């Protein structure tokens, strides 16, 4: 039996707000979270701008004993998950815990732990590492920590597909609840890889913007690394109805594909197949969509290929779409990006506002859609797509719909 799947709670840690409400307030006002890094020294970095989570003090959320077990990436995931569960006003007692899945995407897992450990070993010549080094840095740590902190005993695992991790995670959770394999799911993504080591790695790729992220704009100079987490509570519509939960939106489709072409360069036809699959899965037609929350990294290659892919799928209707990239404000939170963008998409539907693509200087001939430049716009959205396209050629698209 197929179940309709609704979202009943969300939680966010982001460069523009450490609650979902603050995130949306800033997102819809076009507030930038991009600035010089402060959590790491930029003395030996040429790439100085990042989109950091601000004012995040783990002691506000955890006791000292808990903090030693949690890398920053897991702290973000747990705090966002707690907010989502509280927002959903859900109790997992009476057997629901066993029927609730925890599927959390992350690109690279516990990078702070890894970076600090290597520094101790190779630079300070330490003889030993902290006993919790491995459980803090393992890529499933955010998923395991969310399951423990929220008491969820159903299927639990991590999904790693670089920049598409959260979208793949939510998509799998959606299919699991739709099929009846789980009644509820706590799902989304988390990443926290603003460390000296990872930043040197990103720097070496030569795709980072030195100033800010300008998706789809002329003179865009690339991406800006972000961090954060976004977690949603999914449940079958019957279950949400039974307990009189507030339904925030419906997930109606999920499409995936892989390019199998190039490790880095995006492939338009791979994007097209993921978009097609999401539409087919949702039984929506292209004309039903008013808003696309773009992957929109701000690199020359992604933004051109994504624009072409949207035009191929939507044809003449592409000109009527509002397409915007949250990365202009929150940078690229990698494994969390798809979660942050899904929440933004659901909020856009609910609030009837398309969030803007800020830092937009003017059109690039290769990017000729309506990107909601610089200012949010009132927009009645019946259905929308949220795109994630990852390094390694991994594509994932979610389709969501207004409930009423």
């Amino acid at each position, binding site marked *: 039996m197929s179940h309709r799947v609704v979202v009943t709670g969300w939680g966010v840690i982001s460069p523009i707000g450490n609650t979902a409400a603050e995130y949306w307030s800033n997102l819809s006002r076009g507030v930038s979270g991009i600035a010089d890094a402060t959590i790491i020294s930029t003395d030996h970095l040429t790439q100085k701008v990042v989109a950091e989570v601000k004012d995040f003090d783990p002691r506000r959320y955890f006791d000292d004993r808990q903090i030693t077990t949690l890398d920053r990436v897991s702290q973000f995931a747990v705090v966002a998950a707690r907010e989502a569960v509280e927002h959903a006003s859900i109790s997992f007692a009476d057997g629901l815990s066993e029927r609730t899945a925890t599927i959390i995407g992350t690109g690279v897992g516990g990078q702070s732990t890894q970076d600090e450990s290597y520094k101790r070993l190779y630079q300070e010549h330490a003889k030993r590492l902290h006993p919790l080094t491995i459980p803090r840095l393992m890529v499933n740590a955010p998923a395991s920590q969310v399951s423990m902190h929220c008491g969820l005993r159903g299927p639990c695992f991590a999904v790693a597909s670089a920049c598409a991790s959260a979208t793949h995670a939510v998509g799998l959770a959606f299919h699991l609840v739709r099929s009846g394999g789980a009644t509820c799911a706590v799902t989304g993504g988390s990443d926290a890889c603003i460390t000296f080591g990872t930043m040197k790695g990103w720097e070496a790729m030569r795709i980072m913007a030195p100033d800010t992220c300008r998706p789809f704009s002329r003179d865009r100079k*690339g991406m800006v690394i972000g961090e954060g987490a976004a977690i949603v509570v999914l449940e079958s519509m019957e279950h949400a109805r039974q307990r009189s939960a507030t339904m925030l939106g419906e997930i109606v489709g999920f499409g995936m594909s892989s390019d199998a072409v190039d490790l880095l360069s995006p492939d338009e036809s791979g994007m097209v197949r993921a978009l097609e699959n999401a539409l087919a899965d949702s039984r929506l037609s292209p004309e039903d969509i008013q808003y696309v929350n773009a992957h929109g990294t701000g690199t020359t290659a992604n933004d051109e290929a994504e624009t072409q892919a949207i035009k191929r799928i939507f044809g003449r209707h592409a000109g009527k779409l509002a397409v915007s990239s949250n990365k202009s404000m929150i940078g690229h939170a990698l494994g969390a990006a798809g979660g942050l963008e899904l929440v933004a998409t659901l909020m856009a539907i609910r609030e009837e506002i398309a969030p803007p693509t800020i830092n937009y200087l003017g059109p690039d001939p290769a990017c000729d859609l309506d990107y909601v430049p610089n200012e949010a716009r009132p927009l009645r959205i019946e259905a929308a797509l949220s795109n994630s396209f990852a390094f390694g050629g991994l594509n994932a698209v979610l389709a969501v719909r207004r409930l009423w």
Partner: protein
Amino acid sequence: MDDVASDVIAIIAERLPAEKRNFGMADRLEDLGIDSFSAVEMIFDLEEKFDIQISYNSNDARFDLETVGDVISAIKNLVAGRS
């Protein structure tokens, strides 16, 4: 040919298939088949070899190192600036 020029040529040649290694100063990197990914690797090799910092962003179309000769003279300037 001086040492810098021959080292730069060797580093560029490493990125090319054998049949394209007989290039001249005026040959354009793009025509030789150096795409943006190979360019990034080539720049890494040049920075490591000469202990210099080359500013290059693959999103920036205004990259002025178009030909083999351009690369050699840019590296010579950077090496001169270093010492």
